[in-house]
C-alpha cells in the first residue's frame, strides 16, 4: 500500500500498474474500500503499538476486580472472570490474530503459487498430480486438518498457522494455475518459449509478476478467512492456549458467563467482526480495481 504515496509519477514503478497515482485515485473513489484500508491500518497499528496502548497486563489477574461491567473505574470495557482488563486483552489479542492470519496466508501462497504455476504451465501429469492434492485437501474440513496436525505435532501457534495455511492451499493453487494457463497462451510468453528462454526464467520473470494482482486479491480474502478459522479453533480450545489472549479463546471463556455478564462475550466478537470486515472491504476494493467488470 506504500506505493500510493510515492511522489513523482513513474519514478518508482508500481507492481500493479504503471502509474501509481491513477491507482490511488481510482481506489480512493470507493468509500467502502477506503474504510476497509483504514480499518486494516488501525488493527495493524494496535497490534504493533499494543504495549503503549494497553494500560494493564493482559495476563495478570486482579482478583479484587472480577467481572466489573463496562465503564467501571479504570476499566472502560470492564474486566473478565479473572479480573483482567478486557480492553488490554483485546489490544494484545490483535497480535496473535494478525500473526495467524498473515502467516497462514503467506505460507499458503509460498507453497501454492509455484505448484499452481507449474501445473498451469506444464499441464499433463504435473497438473493431474497438483489437482488431486488439492482435491484431497478440500475433502477434509480444515477443522480436521487442524486436529490431525495438533495430534501429530502437538498443539502450538505454529501448527494452527500450518493447518490454516494448508486449508488455504487449494484456492491459491487454483488461482495461480488459472492465471498461468491464460498467460501461457499470450504472445510474449509464446515468444519467450520459441526464442529458447530458460523455463525457470519464463516461470519467474514472465508468469509470476503478471499474476500479482489476482494473488493480492486472493490474499486479501484469505487473511480474513484465516482469522475466522483461527478464532474458531481457539474457541474450541484447539488454538491459542490461555493465558495468552486471543479473541477466540476470550469468547470461549466468556460463554460460561453469558447470562449474567454478556459484555465479555460481545467485545471480542465485535473485534473479530470489524477486523475481518475491514479486510473483506479492502479485498473487494482491490478486486474492483483489477477487474472493473464485476463492480
Amino acid at each position, binding site marked *: 500500500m506504500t506505493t500510493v504515496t510515492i511522489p513523482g509519477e513513474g519514478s518508482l514503478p508500481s507492481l500493479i500498474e504503471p502509474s501509481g497515482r491513477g491507482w490511488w485515485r481510482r481506489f480512493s473513489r470507493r468509500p467502502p474500500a477506503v474504510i476497509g484500508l483504514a480499518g486494516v491500518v488501525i488493527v495493524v497499528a494496535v497490534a504493533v503499538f499494543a504495549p503503549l496502548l494497553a494500560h494493564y497486563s493482559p495476563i495478570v489477574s486482579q482478583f479484587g476486580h472480577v467481572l466489573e461491567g463496562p465503564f467501571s473505574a479504570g476499566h472502560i470495557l470492564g474486566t473478565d472472570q479473572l479480573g483482567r482488563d478486557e480492553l488490554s486483552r483485546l489490544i494484545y489479542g490483535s497480535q496473535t490474530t494478525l500473526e495467524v492470519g498473515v502467516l497462514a496466508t503467506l505460507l499458503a501462497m509460498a507453497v501454492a503459487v509455484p505448484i499452481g504455476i507449474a501445473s498451469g504451465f506444464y499441464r499433463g501429469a504435473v497438473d493431474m498430480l497438483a489437482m*488431486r492434492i488439492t482435491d*484431497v485437501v478440500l475433502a*477434509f474440513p480444515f477443522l480436521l486438518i487442524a486436529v490431525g496436525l495438533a495430534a*501429530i505435532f502437538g498443539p502450538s501457534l505454529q501448527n494452527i498457522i500450518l493447518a490454516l495455511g494448508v486449508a488455504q492451499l487449494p484456492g491459491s493453487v487454483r488461482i495461480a494455475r488459472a492465471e498461468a494457463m491464460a498467460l501461457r497462451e499470450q504472445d510474449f510468453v509464446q515468444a519467450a518459449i520459441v526464442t529458447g528462454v530458460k523455463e525457470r526464467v519464463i516461470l519467474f520473470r514472465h508468469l509470476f509478476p503478471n499474476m500479482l494482482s489476482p494473488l493480492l486479491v486472493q490474499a486479501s480474502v484469505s487473511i480474513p478467512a484465516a482469522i475466522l478459522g483461527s478464532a*474458531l479453533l481457539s474457541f474450541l*480450545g484447539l488454538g491459542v492456549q490461555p493465558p495468552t489472549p486471543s479473541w477466540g479463546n476470550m469468547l470461549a471463556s466468556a460463554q460460561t458467563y453469558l447470562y449474567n455478564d454478556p459484555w465479555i462475550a*460481545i467485545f471480542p466478537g465485535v473485534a473479530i467482526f470489524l477486523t475481518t470486515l475491514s479486510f*473483506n472491504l479492502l479485498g473487494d476494493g482491490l478486486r474492483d480495481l483489477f477487474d472493473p467488470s464485476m463492480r
Partner: protein
Amino acid sequence: MRAYLLRRAGISLLTLIIASMVVFLGVRAVPGSPATALTGNTDFSQAALAAINRAYGLDNPLPVQYVDWVGQVVAGHLGSSPVTGMSVVTELGNAFPITFELTVLAMLIALLFGIPTGVVAAIRRGRGADYASNGLALFGLSIPSFWFGIMLILLFSVYLKWLPSAGFIPFSQSPGANLAHLVMPAFVLGTGVAAVLMRQTRSGMLETLRTDYVRTARAKGLSEWVVVGKHALRNSLVTVATVIGLQFGILLSGVAVTEEVFGLPGIGQLTINAVFQRDYPTIQAVALLTAAIVILINLLMDFVYMVLSPRVRLAGEL
C-alpha cells in the same frame, strides 16, 4: 457424456483412495504406539503390547495393514470407542441424523437467501438493492459464526425467551420443538454460505447478462422473466453448483462449532469430544466419512453441472 461422467467418477474414487491413505497414515503418525492410539491406554507391558499388535495386525507391513483396514471399513467395521465403549458405527448412526437435518436446513436457508439476492443485485446493479445485498453478503462473510450464534442465544433465548438455547428433540417426537431447536443453528450456519452464494450468483449473472444469447433472447421479445430466469440464471447456476460443492467442506467445519454452541449432539460435537478424549477410532471414522461425503457431493455437483450447462454436456460428448 457417459465418458465424461465415468472419468469424473474415476477421479473421485482416486481422490477417496488417497484421502483414506491420509487418514490411515495420520492415525499411525500420532506419537506413541498405534496400540495407544487405538485403545486409549498408555500403560503396557512389552508382552501386552506385542499381544495387542498381533491382535490388531499391527506387526504386519504398512501396505498389508492398509488393505486389511480398508477391507474392514468396507465391511462396516470401524472399531469401537475406547472412551464410551460403544461401536463407532452406532455413535455415528446416532449423531448423523442431527447433523444431516441441520446441514440440509442450513443449505435451504442459504439457497433461499443467496440466489434471489444475487439475481436481484445483478439486475439492479449499482442501485440500492445491489448495495443492500452486497452489504448483507459482507456481513455474512465477516461475522464469526460461533459468535453470531452466541449473540442470537443472548437475544432470543436469554432476553426474549422465544427459543431454547441448547439441546435437541427428534422430529418424530415433536416436530415443533425439533424446529425450534434447529432454527437458530441452521440460520447461523446458512448465513456464511448464503453470502458466498449471493456473490457467486451476482458475478455469474453479470457475466451471462452481457452475453450474445441473452441479447438475442431479449431481441426475440421474450419477457424479462424468461430471459433472466431461464436463459441467464440457468447458466449462472453452473458456477454456483461448483461453489456449493466447495462450500460443503467449509460447512462441515462450521457444523462442529455450531453444534458446540447450541449443544446439538451431532457429528460435530462427536468429533470435538473425540478430539479432547483422544478417541482415535472415532476421529478416524469421522475423517473418512466427511471426506467421502465431500467427494461424493462434488461428484454430484459435476453431474448437476452437466445437466445445467449444454456447453459441458456437449464437450463431454465430443
